[in-house]
């Protein structure tokens, strides 16, 4: 089977502390995978390893069969391996339109042009508008990001990622910090992601995970302890112990 995206034996230790241990994972085009696990399980570290923000101690990352382990973060993005951030990283005095325009221009290799206007091309403007409309951000397209709702900022994170036309998209808690009234918008956006895209989502909201994912991977203490269907995950003894126990408990208290 030729996987679009494959991770082999990925490990990372900081000093004597192993935060990722021998992780193997593969995704095909169109995959919808959720990566869950208790806090401190190494989920964000995994995303950082895969996208090249930090270097692994061992293991390989393959994209389309090409070993990208030696490449920096920027080159991985250019090959279609794109992420969003757990805490939004946006430019507070720019508008959503400017964010997406900048991203599209960058994808087309035009972002460092000194000559030429920022909103020069109608083609780019059209693409930007389509993307913003798809994500329901057209109404706030020209407001500064600092002034728009947090849920809309999360959607903008996704819009920026999509503007890069990724092959593999890693969503780091897309609904984190979003008030429950706004989660349906995020969920809707996730449902409408391009079908050919392989998506890995880290998420704590189990309802969202069960609706979104076709496959669930559970990470605990830097190790994969379960991989399978969402319907099986709750029944797994190991998972209950590591994660769902806590979760169920938390729910009961709430």
């Amino acid at each position, binding site marked *: 089977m030729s996987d679009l995206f494959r991770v082999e034996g990925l490990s990372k230790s900081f000093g004597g502390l192993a935060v990722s241990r021998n992780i193997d994972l593969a995704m095909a085009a169109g995959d919808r995978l959720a990566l869950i696990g208790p806090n401190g399980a190494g989920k964000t570290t995994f995303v950082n390893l895969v*996208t090249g*923000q930090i270097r692994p101690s061992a293991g390989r990352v393959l994209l389309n069969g090409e070993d990208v382990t030696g490449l920096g*973060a*920027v080159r991985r*993005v*250019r090959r279609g391996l*794109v*992420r969003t*951030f757990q805490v939004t*990283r*946006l*430019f*507070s*005095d*720019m*508008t959503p339109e*400017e964010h997406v*325009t*900048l*991203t599209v*221009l*960058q*994808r087309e290799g*035009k*972002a*460092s*042009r*000194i*000559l*030429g*206007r*920022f909103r020069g091309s109608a083609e780019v403007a059209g693409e930007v508008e389509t993307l913003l409309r798809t994500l329901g951000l*057209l*109404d706030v397209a*020209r*407001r*500064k990001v600092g*002034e728009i709702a947090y849920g809309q900022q999360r959607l903008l994170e996704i819009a*920026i990622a999509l503007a*890069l036309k990724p092959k593999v998209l890693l969503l780091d808690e897309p609904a984190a910090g979003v008030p429950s009234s706004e989660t349906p918008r995020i969920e809707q956006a996730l449902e409408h992601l391009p079908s050919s895209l392989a998506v890995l989502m880290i998420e704590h909201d189990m309802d969202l995970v069960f609706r979104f994912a076709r496959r669930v991977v559970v990470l605990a203490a830097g190790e994969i302890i379960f991989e399978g269907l969402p319907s099986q995950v709750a029944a797994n003894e190991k998972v209950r112990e590591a994660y769902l126990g806590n979760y169920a408990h938390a729910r009961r208290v709430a």
Partner: protein
Amino acid sequence: MQAIAKSRQAATVSGGNTHLLRDGLGLLLIIAAGAAGYWLFPDNLALLTRVIAVALLVLSIDLIVGYCGVATLGQATLYGAGAYAAGMACLRGVTEPMTLIVIGAAAGAMAGLVMGTIMLRAHGLAQLVLSIAIVQLAHEAANKASAYTGGSDGLAGFSPSPLFGTFEFDLWGRTAYLFGLALLVLVFILLKFVVASPFGMLCRGIKEDPVRIRSMGAFVFPVLLKMFIISGAVAGMGGALAAISTQVVGLDSVSFELSANSLVMLVLGGLGSLYGALIGTVIFMGFEHFVSAINPFHWMTMVGALLIAVVLVAPGGLSGLIDRALPGMRDKGGQRP
């Protein structure tokens, strides 16, 4: 639906117009202020020309500090490179003033390339310290290479030929001032385009969050280096203008003091708007001139007090204050009708 699209389009157009109107008005104000200076202070044109030269230096700092978030206390390196290059060229027979400006810009750009390559290896405080080290080294190099630079005596004894072959650089400094003013306006217009370009936007992004820019698939280093080169060209033109107008190039043109003062001017005027650089330079140097005439011992204290007041009351600098006072002039692109 179509109506919405139309009203959106209208908003876009009017947003763009506000922007153009604002910049056009700003430009007119600069020219008006420049002309006023010419008529009101005919005996101080040499000082005013120096203000313009330093304004170019402060603009060049704004490009790096205000638009890219790279702190520097060594920008006079680039200004000095332009000044010495123009002075040396003039001594060796290249006396055409436009050519001298181009030579200054080229020397400044080259110095910017070198300085950027070194400084961008570091971050934060280390970067700032590197910039100081570079300006001190450049200062020492200019001092030691006296065969080329005149050492502590400076470069003198060169005189640029008349502008366009007709306008002599007169004793009152009229030609030099008007030449400088035209240069400043031209550079200002060009820089407005630069900061509004995709490249300018990318720089703003880098200033706020380089990690985000990388995760958009853009390399940070080449973008910043490019800005260093542009900044060097602008500072170099300032240096060349100073060399042409005073017909002297001294070690003070490549000093830490000039670097630090011009950073203070920028903070005073406000970072990241280009207007702030001009306002800050005029206020600071005006203070320097008039207040030091009234009270030669304590004028720096007053500048210090003014700076503290500005930082506390208007963190956006004086230009930010004007923005707040004239809300109608603010870029309305962000607001929907």
